């Protein structure tokens, strides 16, 4: 079984995240880049399956600037067998449509039984890529899974939707996304880090995938304006001297909040 896990380099959410006010793109210099935690959890699902099923091949794939190679390599150190890095300056400003078309082309080229992604990235928070990929790849989507069972021919799981919990299943090939209800990922160990250096790491361009990034015959979603909001400032802070609760009640009453 061949599992492709989509991972993403994102600005560390523990830091202040900035957008470039000219381009609206992430200001990559403003914060430490890390592998998105949800992508690590997706990789953990694949690696756990591989631990129990020796014939599993796990590929990490990412569309990201060239500088993200080190971050993607962490996926290899954690245990993935190979990596595909789609790096192309022409894709820097890709909208969701172009991103999905490019990833779908790369996934087709690599070949897959199952694609696993996170449900939402911590920077874009789009959450639509898994379903877009399923449509383009002509396979089923099962998203936002809070548990996953993989067999030779199918994938199934539970998803928490508004108003209920749903059990779903799909024949392979398929695209699934997982939520942070799934376990934390393993840490890469020294052996893994050393082994990663010898694992296949393929870098491909848009042209390699038959993608024309500046295709103006396609409709695009573009940013037309961006503004930074002034940060919130702290108000009153008191230390409880036996009247803390009463003081909050007074604050609420004064501000007509009760």
């Amino acid at each position, binding site marked *: 079984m061949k599992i492709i896990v989509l991972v993403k380099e994102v600005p560390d959410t523990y830091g202040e995240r900035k957008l470039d006010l000219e381009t609206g793109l992430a200001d990559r210099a403003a914060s430490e880049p890390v592998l998105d935690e949800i992508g690590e959890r997706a990789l953990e699902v694949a690696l756990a399956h591989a631990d129990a099923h020796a014939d599993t091949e796990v590929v990490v794939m990412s569309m990201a600037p060239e500088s993200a190679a080190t971050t993607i390599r962490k996926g290899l150190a954690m245990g993935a067998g190979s990596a595909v890095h789609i790096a192309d300056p022409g894709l820097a400003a890709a909208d969701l449509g172009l991103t999905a078309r490019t990833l779908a082309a790369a996934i087709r080229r690599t070949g897959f039984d199952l694609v696993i992604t996170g449900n939402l990235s911590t920077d874009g928070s789009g959450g639509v890529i898994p379903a877009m990929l399923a449509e383009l790849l002509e396979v089923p989507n099962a998203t936002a899974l809070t548990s996953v069972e993989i067999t030779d021919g199918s994938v199934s799981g539970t998803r928490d939707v508004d108003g209920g919990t749903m059990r779903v299943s799909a024949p392979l090939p398929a695209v699934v996304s997982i939520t942070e209800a799934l376990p934390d990922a393993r840490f890469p160990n020294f052996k893994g880090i050393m082994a990663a250096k010898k694992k296949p790491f393929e870098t491909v361009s848009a042209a390699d995938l038959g993608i024309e990034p500046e295709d103006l015959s396609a*409709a695009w979603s573009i940013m037309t304006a961006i503004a930074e909001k002034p940060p919130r400032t702290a108000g009153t802070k008191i230390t409880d001297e036996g009247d803390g609760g009463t003081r909050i009640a007074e604050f609420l009453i004064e501000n007509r909040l009760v």
Partner: protein
Amino acid sequence: MTDHPAAPILVLLEATPDGELATSAAGLVAAASGIGAPVALVVAAPGRAQSLAEQAAALGAERVLAAETTSAQSELTVPHVDALAAAAKLIAPEAVLVSNSIDGRDIAGRFAARTGAPIAVDAVGVSRDDEGVLAHHSVHGGAYNVVSAATFGPLVVTVRQGAIDARAEARPVATESLEVPASGAASATIESVEPVTETSSRPELRGAKRVVSGGRGLGSAEKFALVEELADALGAAVGASRAAVDAGYIQANHQVGQTGVSVSPQLYVALGISGAIQHKAGMQTAKNIVAVNKDPDAPIFEVADFGVVGDVFAVVPQLISALAERKR
């Protein structure tokens, strides 16, 4: 503004497992009526669409397209996408609005990929200018406001749940049944749906006017009841930090933050929450923030309008009695 008052805006209205319109519906129809003529699409089991159509008209839909199918109960995403594609073909909308719910995102994503339409996600509002429809986004926990648009053609927009306060006026019911050719696209099978058993009279977290959230500082699931007690005293929804969810104090759908729900209430009360940046990302656009934390250096105080350095188990019971006192 009123250049194209009648441009059709297609709105997909989701239904709950028990056959009512989802709570997102009112905001979606109102958003659409602000930029054009709202045409609602409802997808329901045979015989069930008329009641949804009536609800949609009551929310302000000018026209309701009703697709009746048995497949929406058994197949994930694809039947809705097929219906949306048929509706879009029929009315040639200027924009397609879908809730940014888990199912809504999937439907919007597949629809956009199928039709090649650009997609704008997690919008907190829509508007229009001379050139067409604009989607407004609140990015990185509200630190940035971003506006996006399509270069041409219809824009697919997923709208954040609870973000639209506006409501449209009710209209007479005008239902048309929609013929939906099946695309035959592969889909996952829905094996079962269990409605949530949470029988709560509390307000829903998304879109709530007041939210009381608890963190790891509450210490246990039993003691988390204090958060619920204050919420009830304030008529507020209950929220939580990820640490509280991970510790099993409360279900994951109450998580506020980066990877949970984003709220923008009149009042947000944070109890025993440190104020990690990922938590703040989901609540710092609240109008008023009150925090109780025993650590004077907790980052939550940096965004609190009123902060009390103290023990939640001393401060909160006193607050609850003060509120009860006032009611009498």
